[in-house]
């Protein structure tokens, strides 16, 4: 197990203003511990940008630039091209980083273009499953039946009506050489995937599930257990696609989805009556189909 050293703590520093227990703040540090200092980060608007750069302070110890909400991929392409034009391509690799809103919705056209051009950029989507920085609005990666301020649970609906958009599959369809999912409860797996992604040239995609105590409504101390349960229930399978083929999928002991849903207030409306119980059955079906799809053997 790699523990923090004085050297790598400087890549991502304390004093940032993320909420207590923020899974994203943990993910940012773990990613940079794996890449080391030779990276330039292009960061779309969202929590990561806001809580790391309370102007004029910054938590970053590596070169970092804030793009707009929607053009992080285009800016990353420019930074990568500039490094090559200056003959400094071997001094740093480029990482574009955005939330689920920036990645799956508003910035997606630019990301698709970057993948099509086959630019040498690692794209990381940190998935906290809503537009958190502006007060928990639904995104394309908000889970089925999750309550947000724009998919409210009430008399008319029981939360978000759509399932998560399958961005990893869309990435694979673009012909990317490396596509993977990870989450903070498995730091060694995350570290291995970041390192693997950095070994590959061309466009790469990593989607990291990051529990958000504020938006998900769980205890700040439960960030790691929520991240783990998301995997153990099958709702967020961890896998890698190398050159378009499923290369690895994490094997877990399958747990019922209720264990994951219950501690989060964004799902509390599902535990009130029979209508909610019906929806939980549908969520269990999503989990079961993920287990089947990724051939994850459920260890009983």
């Amino acid at each position, binding site marked *: *197990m790699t523990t923090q050293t004085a050297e790598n703590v400087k890549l991502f*520093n304390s*004093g940032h203003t993320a909420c207590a*227990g923020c899974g994203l703040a943990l993910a940012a540090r773990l990613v940079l511990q794996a890449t080391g200092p030779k990276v330039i980060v292009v960061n779309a608007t969202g929590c990561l940008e806001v809580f790391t750069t309370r102007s004029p*302070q*910054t938590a*970053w110890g590596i070169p970092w630039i804030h793009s707009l909400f929607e053009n992080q991929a285009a800016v990353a392409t420019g930074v990568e091209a500039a490094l090559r034009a200056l003959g400094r391509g071997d001094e740093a690799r480029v990482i574009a980083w955005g939330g689920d809103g920036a990645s799956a919705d508003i910035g997606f056209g630019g990301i698709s273009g970057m993948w099509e051009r086959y630019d040498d950029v690692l794209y990381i989507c940190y998935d906290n499953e809503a537009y958190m920085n502006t007060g928990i609005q639904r995104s394309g990666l908000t889970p089925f039946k999750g309550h947000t301020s724009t998919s409210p649970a009430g008399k008319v609906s029981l939360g978000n009506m759509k399932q998560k958009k399958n961005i990893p599959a869309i990435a694979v369809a673009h012909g990317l050489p490396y596509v993977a999912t990870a989450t903070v409860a498995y730091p060694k797996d995350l570290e291995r995937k970041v390192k693997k992604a950095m070994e590959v040239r061309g466009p790469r995609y990593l989607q990291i599930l990051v529990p958000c105590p504020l938006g998900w409504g769980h205890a700040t*101390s439960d960030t*790691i257990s929520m991240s783990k349960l998301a995997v153990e229930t099958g709702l967020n399978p961890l896998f890698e696609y190398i050159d378009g083929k499923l290369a690895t999928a994490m094997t877990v002991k399958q747990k019922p989805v209720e264990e994951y849903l219950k501690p989060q207030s964004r799902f509390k409306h599902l535990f009130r009556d029979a209508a909610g119980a019906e929806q939980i059955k549908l969520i269990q079906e999503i989990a079961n189909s993920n287990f089947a799809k990724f051939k994850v053997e459920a260890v009983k």
Partner: protein
Amino acid sequence: MVAKRAKNILIGNPGTSLANKTGSWRVFMPVYDKTKCTACGMCSMMCPDGCVHGDKIKKYDPDYDYCKGCGVCAKVCPVKCITMKEEQK
């Protein structure tokens, strides 16, 4: 060559967030019992604020200047030697 700094562009110096002592946010405080600590490093690895430091010999301590009291370290410690106590200010 000294790089010229563009005007009207906000540039921050690396790690200047360290001036921001987020420990003042704390409501609960993690108290580490070093007699039971096995120095596994799990608390340090998992702290969202990156503020637990130590090694095999010194064992591990939270930096109360930055610790927000989330309780993640207490939950992940395999030997349960971290207790969350109400903050005394």
